[in-house]
């Protein structure tokens, strides 16, 4: 049985900064994962629907606009509403350290800020999947 880690890389909100998301997408691909990129300007609903249809193991969201405290928890709420508890959700981008505990409390497993080597992210994903590989 072939088992691939599938990841949705998503850009929720009106934020147009996509370099980081693309860097992450390529790094995950190079680590052997299958990456579905949503493109820019996604609503939380679109992110969650795409994650369901693609049956991903991981949702990886990137936000640099400052709207993370609103958008990340909104995605977590939608997942809870739909009783989806086996998807690992991580975030990244320009996110102040002070905001990170609140995001984790909302269910974001980890937050990766500028300067984090992509190998750290890859390792975290591999070690924290909620569905067995």
């Amino acid at each position, binding site marked *: 049985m*072939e088992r691939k880690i599938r990841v949705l890389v998503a850009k929720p909100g009106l934020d147009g900064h996509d370099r980081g998301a693309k860097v992450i997408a390529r790094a995950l*691909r190079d680590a052997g994962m299958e990456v579905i990129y949503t493109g820019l300007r996604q609503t939380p609903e679109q992110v969650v629907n795409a994650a369901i249809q*693609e049956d991903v193991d991981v949702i990886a969201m990137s936000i640099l606009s400052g709207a993370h405290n609103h958008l990340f928890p909104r995605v977590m709420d939608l997942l809870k509403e739909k009783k989806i508890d086996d998807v690992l959700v991580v975030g990244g981008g320009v996110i102040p350290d002070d905001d990170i505990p609140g995001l984790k409390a909302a269910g974001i497993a980890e937050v990766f800020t500028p300067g984090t080597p992509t190998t750290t992210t890859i390792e975290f994903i591999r070690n924290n999947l909620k569905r067995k590989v």
Partner: protein
Amino acid sequence: MYDSASLVSGIRKGDPRSIARSITLVEREDPARLAVLKAINADIGHAHIVGITGPPGSGKSTLTDKLLKELRSRGRRVAVAAIDPSSPFTGGAILGDRIRMQRHADDDGVFIRSLATRGHLGGLSRATTETVRIFDAAGFDDIIIETVGVGQSEVDIVRLADTVVLVSVPGLGDDIQAIKAGVMEIGDVFCVNKADRDGSERVIREIRAMLEAAVMNGAATRFSALYQALDQLKAVDRTEGQSSPRASSSGLFDQGAAHHIARQPPGHDALEIPAVIPTTAETGDGVSRLVDEIKAHEAALVATGFLRLRRHENLSWELGNALADRVLRRLEGEDRKIELADLASAVLDKRKDFYEALGILEGSLAG
């Protein structure tokens, strides 16, 4: 919660998670998929399966996005399987087709699934056929398959789709030669995208000329036999002075026939080739006509009985292919490798002759 019974009832209800999870089982070649596929077997065969193929960058994903829009406006539920290549080095993939279609993510009449080739050649992933069956059982009216788009090796799609749309574009230079080589074997409906660009009229003329040449030379095409059967139906119609019920209910004679360009070169019978349709996927121009043509093709397949014929041929091929796959896999085991080596030594040492060794191998594979 994901036992096969609940997956099956979920699929039948069109539940996205059940559909998605079942496709994952298929992609992993999980034995659990067999019970699901068996249970839905009676539910399939209703959807119109449309393949979109053409070179990378020709606009297949953008076109699919617009086809979704047009088909939805006609009240149809549509599923998409979009295939992109896996990296042969890392096994990873960036599946980028969805970006162009993501606006439909909120529409529960649309389901989009990205599939990586995972080393499979031929333009599709191994899981595509069974993914299509799951979509079909889930009640989608149309199923669109976007192939990888690597030109001549795109052979799988003609074994899966009822209607294959071949997308060409201006400005490909030498690549057009690659399309030319396989053009008449692959396409049912022909589309020249990026019609907003210079040179699109020339590409349309070239494709028409190729199709006409193919017909005059009696080359194998996907459409010649279909058109002959259609002509016969029409002739019967004319003599009986009424429409055959199947043809008229499908609207075949209102629209379908009009879409074929009939030309009569001196000394030849009427020459019928498919229309070559210009589209600009960016704006949606021409897409409504393209959908008309795709649907006219389906109507023609239904009216002539070719739909069943084609699906029958495809299934025969798939059965043979799946068997070959199984045999190949059985050759991969460690025991089998030792047996192969032993038999090779026996032939080399002239203890056995080649066909004797082959017979022994065949016997033990069957056992």
